[in-house]
């Protein structure tokens, strides 16, 4: 036994993109766990205290070289958010650390590639067609005919419901595709990026968060989405856990998510899967909407607390270090409401915060867009106005607290 090694805290490389909500929670988790961690980021300044390594998810070879040139031995490499996922896999591979295969992470970043791999593995999912970037209206007509109406037109590379529109007829599908291509251009995505046209699946929506270890999924939370949108845009609003869906439906959803991760080749680390329960069939069937090789986005993880008061980020870090992680979430139901941007304009004020925070059951309220900034609602925007958190004796109480608190807020936009 190497006593000296045991006394040293594990060393973790934490890759933090500049525009993430997740930096503070991961840093707090690493601090609470007493980890020796180094931050790699595309935005942080190289201050004297603990120089941040400058890396960019868009420049993999140079970033990986810069990290490897440190000559530092790390025990784990963790990406705090999507833009750093591929770099984390590349670096972990070079360091010989447990990680997802790089190609699996790349596949998971494309909604079109997800669909192809799930189709090959017979993972339940909506009918879909991939439409090339330069496709004509006739090609789009054929794609919608394959998927059927109503359908959903999607950007394959964006997230947070950005660039997703429902279309109930061909004319709407054509205008939706045109609009999404403009959004992709504004987001700086390559002009050759295809679009996805897929069947609209009605039914309850849920998300599953979990941690993969050697391909086995340990679920950390199942969130119901009781206010899921029917379109034309698909704002994520309320997430409530534990799920109120029947246990057999939850079990089927977990199995579907695990199969979807496996079909992508993901074997290690967090996943966040989004599913709908297709109730058009005799037996309600979970179908995969999307899956990301990261934990739940935004500030939503703050709705979760695990055994011993651990946060989801602590579980992610522990999983990366090969430590056992508790599966049981604390028993108290909890939830989060993501405040969507209601309309375009300049944010002037969010009034009623004190009243909202005073609603029984509310445990937190954070407005995340600064006053004075321009707002862009979905499908163009990629930001939420803020987050409201609640706990309660039952999921129903949590939902009521969240919606009541939201009702207290007055968003003033010019």
């Amino acid at each position: 036994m190497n006593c000296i090694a045991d006394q040293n805290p594990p060393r973790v490389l934490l890759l933090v993109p500049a525009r993430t909500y997740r930096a503070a929670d991961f840093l707090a988790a690493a601090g609470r766990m007493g980890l020796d961690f180094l931050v790699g980021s595309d935005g942080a300044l190289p201050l004297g205290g603990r120089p941040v390594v400058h890396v960019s998810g868009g420049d993999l070879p140079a970033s990986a070289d810069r990290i490897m040139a440190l000559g530092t031995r790390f025990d784990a490499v963790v990406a705090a958010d999507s833009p750093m996922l591929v770099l984390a896999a590349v670096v972990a591979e070079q360091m010989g650390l447990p990680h997802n295969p790089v190609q699996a992470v790349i596949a998971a970043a494309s909604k079109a590639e997800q669909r192809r791999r799930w189709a090959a593995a017979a993972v339940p999912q909506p009918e879909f067609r991939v439409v090339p970037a330069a496709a004509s209206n006739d090609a789009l007509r054929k794609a919608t005919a394959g998927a059927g109406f109503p359908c959903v037109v999607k950007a394959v590379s964006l997230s947070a419901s950005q660039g997703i529109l429902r279309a109930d007829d061909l004319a709407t599908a054509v205008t939706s595709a045109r609009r999404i291509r403009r959004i992709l251009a504004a987001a700086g995505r390559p002009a050759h990026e295809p679009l996805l046209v897929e069947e609209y699946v009605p039914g309850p929506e849920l998300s599953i968060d979990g941690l993969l270890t050697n391909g086995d999924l340990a679920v950390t939370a199942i969130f119901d989405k009781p206010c899921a949108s029917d379109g034309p845009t698909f704002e994520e609003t309320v997430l409530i856990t534990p799920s109120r869906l029947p246990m057999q439906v939850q079990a089927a959803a977990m199995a579907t998510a695990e199969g979807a991760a496996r079909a992508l080749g993901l074997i290690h680390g967090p996943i966040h899967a989004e599913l709908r329960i297709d109730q058009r069939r005799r037996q309600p069937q979970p179908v995969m909407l999307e899956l990301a090789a990261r934990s739940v986005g935004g500030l939503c993880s703050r709705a979760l607390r695990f055994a011993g008061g651990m946060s989801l980020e602590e579980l992610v870090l522990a999983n990366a270090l090969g430590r056992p992680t508790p599966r049981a979430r604390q028993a108290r139901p909890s939830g989060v409401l993501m405040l969507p941007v209601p309309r375009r304009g300049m944010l002037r004020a969010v009034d009623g915060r004190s009243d909202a925070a005073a609603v029984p059951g509310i445990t937190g309220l954070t407005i995340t867009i600064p006053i004075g900034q321009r707002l862009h609602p979905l499908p163009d925007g990629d930001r939420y106005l803020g987050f409201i958190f609640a706990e309660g004796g039952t999921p129903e109480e949590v939902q009521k607290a969240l919606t009541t608190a939201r009702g207290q807020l007055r968003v003033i936009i010019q």
Partner: protein
Amino acid sequence: MTDLAAKVAVALERSVIPSVIARGAALRVVAVEAGVATLEVTGSPGAVLPLASRIQARVRAAVPEITAVRITAPGQGPLPEGAESMAEQARRILDAEINPAIAAHHGHVTLDGVDRGLVQIRLEGGCQGCSLAEVTVRQGIEPLLRARLPGMAGVIDVTDHEAGTQPFFSAEKR
């Protein structure tokens, strides 16, 4: 003893003297002039050094007429600058080493106070509400201050980040 000196003595007695005694020293008010309270430490002056900023804060909070606190030791005059206040040292480090760097992101950091070895800072400009503010504090400012101020217990960011209007980086939902 003047009324002001008596007020200072009462403030010390309530909140500071027990800690000073526990550290093997004693503290008394020797003068209050022009808003400056002069305190004399006897016994083990070094034991009082870590409390200097706390003593100053408590006295100024309890007696608003006091604008500064000077701590002396018999035959030694004022205690050394390093002890005089962790606050002053922290402020110098922020101004000389941190602010020039974060100015590149239109940011600025000010010292809000020091309490029981906890350095309280306030981020402004591009740092206020920035999605990487926590990285700046925990990976940049705190380790630098810790290296320079061995007696520092920690750094507290007291910024109202929600009130930031021009964060250098804004978070995006993923």
